[in-house]
């Protein structure tokens, strides 16, 4: 007989199975379902201009990418300074299809879920290749491997004529059951697609982390020798973490390509990699919910910084590149301040808030 499953004031687990539940109480489940429903339904009632819809879509694409980065950096404890390159691999997979077949080939416009899977697969392959040194090395060196992959990726895109030397490669409009997705509905359509993908991946990762395949990531991060003694293969686990992260990044890249209807070089640079790391850190490394908070926080901060730079440019006409200066400055400050004062990120505030609400109005 378990405790009250509607309003638990604490942890009363008596079996391991109970602790592993995704939703501890029925209230949690209800609130989650209500939240999910509201996220899907709100565009029917509130109409948002395409400009803001693009921001929301951007955040969602970033969430898909950060789910991957958090898996490899947060759960498996391997620093990846080249996540934007993996995202780029996914985007350029679709771009190469568009280069070979033409940007409105039926494969790209009608079978786009297949294309997204292909992009993810390509990302996974490259992730596994970059993770290969894990068989012989500990995590510090892997940061170098990802950094060098980032540099190689940038060079390849910039110098190969096949990739248009980093200039935009166009990707055609997609078709849905009702026909071609027009200019007006474009961002709304992708909002729903990305949201569905996030829900699938979110549940997938949450469940993965309950199984042995997910827990071995954390085991290898915390103590690789102990994990080895328990019968896991640390090297293989790390490669597998990179491949998973690469898959999620690749899908994010494919979504990015479709969302912007084109692929350009500047979305996948080292700066982007660092801002993605900032998202993962700010959200909270090693927490699933952090992958959602981080992108929201950083992208909104980025918008504020841009506005501030525009505002300042009115008063200081000479400061032309204030935006290029303030962006890295704010990202860097956010990374450093969070690591120094709140290393567990926004997810920790969320945890505190939840435990406060759980006991409200009583407290210890």
């Amino acid at each position, binding site marked *: 007989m378990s405790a009250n499953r509607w309003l638990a004031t604490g942890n009363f687990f008596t079996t391991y199975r109970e602790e592993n539940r995704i939703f501890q109480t029925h209230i949690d489940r209800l609130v989650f379902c209500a939240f999910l429903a509201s996220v899907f339904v709100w565009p029917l009632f509130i109409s948002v201009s395409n400009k803001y819809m693009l921001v929301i879509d951007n955040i969602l694409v970033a969430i898909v990418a950060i789910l991957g980065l958090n898996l490899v950096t947060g759960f498996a404890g391997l620093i990846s300074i080249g996540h934007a390159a993996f995202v780029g691999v996914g985007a350029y997979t679709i771009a190469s299809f568009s280069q070979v077949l033409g940007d409105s080939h039926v494969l790209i416009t009608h079978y786009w879920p297949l294309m997204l899977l292909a992009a993810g697969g390509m990302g996974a392959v490259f992730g596994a290749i970059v993770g290969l040194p894990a068989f012989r090395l500990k995590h510090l060196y892997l940061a170098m*491997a990802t950094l060098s992959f980032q540099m190689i990726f940038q060079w390849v895109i910039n110098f190969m004529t096949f990739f248009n030397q980093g200039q935009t490669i166009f990707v055609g409009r997609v078709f849905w059951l009702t026909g071609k997705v027009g200019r007006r509905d474009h961002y709304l359509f992708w909002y729903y697609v990305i949201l569905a993908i996030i829900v699938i991946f979110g549940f997938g990762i949450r469940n993965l982390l309950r199984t042995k395949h997910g827990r071995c990531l954390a085991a290898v991060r915390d103590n690789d020798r102990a994990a080895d003694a328990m019968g896991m293969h640390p090297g293989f686990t790390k490669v597998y973490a990179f491949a998973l992260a690469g898959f999620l990044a690749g899908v994010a890249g494919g979504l990015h390509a479709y969302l912007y209807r084109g692929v350009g070089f500047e979305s996948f640079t080292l700066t982007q990699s*660092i801002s993605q790391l900032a998202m993962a850190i700010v959200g909270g490394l090693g927490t699933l919910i952090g992958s959602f908070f981080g992108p929201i926080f950083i992208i909104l901060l980025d918008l504020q910084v841009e506005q501030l730079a525009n505002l300042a440019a009115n008063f200081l006409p000479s400061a032309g590149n204030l935006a*290029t200066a303030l962006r*890295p400055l704010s990202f860097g400050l956010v990374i450093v301040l969070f690591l120094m004062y709140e290393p567990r990120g926004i997810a920790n505030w969320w945890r505190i808030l939840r435990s406060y609400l759980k006991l409200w109005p009583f407290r210890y």
Partner: protein
Amino acid sequence: MSYFFQLVISGIVVGSIYALSGLGFVLIYKSSRVLNIAHGQIIAAGAFITYALTVWAGIPIYISFLLSLVITFFLAMSVERVFLRRLIGEPIISVIMVTIGLMSIIDGLIYLTPFGSENFSFPEFLPKTPLTVGGVSISWTQLVGVIITAILIAGFSWFFKKSTVGISMRAVSDDQLASMSVGISIPRVFGLAWATAGLSAAAAGTIIGNITGLNFDTLHAFGITVFPVVILGGLDSIFGAVVAGIIMGLIQQFASGYLDGNWGLNGTADVLPYIILLVILLFKPHGLFGTHEIERV
């Protein structure tokens, strides 16, 4: 044949500067096991400080070079003091992430100054006619740069081998607990390691700025190439950093001399170091001279 020797000369020039900047990086890694991702930014900052002192403040370049070494020395020390001191004892992964954040911050600060967007070049203070021996020519700037680099590397080796402070730094890198028990202050050693690394980075930045001109993107790329250099040499070997620096300089010069323009290749010098990095990580992960930790995970 003289083309070959010309490439060798310029390879050695660039390589010795890689050696100098790799040395600083290895120093920090050796003493505190921190990969300083922001090292390239410190190199750039050092170069810009020298330029600002020389041209804007009108100080003779010899004095401003020394002044900028001193300034960067204290700058790097305060970076360690402010950002990294409080993270001693935290997991190493978060310390490395702090240096990634630092890289971003210093980038932003440099973009705030005119150096972020414009090109500058140091005033000529050496004879313009290059020195030519048997068809191979080397400019005076390069020659002086190599000589200064050689002197600095020799000075650093002496410092680590003989001076008390250098020996205490090596002791800390060997065994922190044991060195604490003989009375070495570990935070002070960490601070000194950062400061010395800053000093060597400023020297490297100023010399490369004199040779190629000051452009933030170039210095940025130069700073990131330090990573392949130190991996090739072995992360914890100062001698390895010097040798690998020169090897990497030669490889880059040969690549741009012989590969570019053939088979439709272009700019191979920018990418080859990273391919080498990946290959080395796969096949000889501890580099040429790094310590082999017998530990496979």
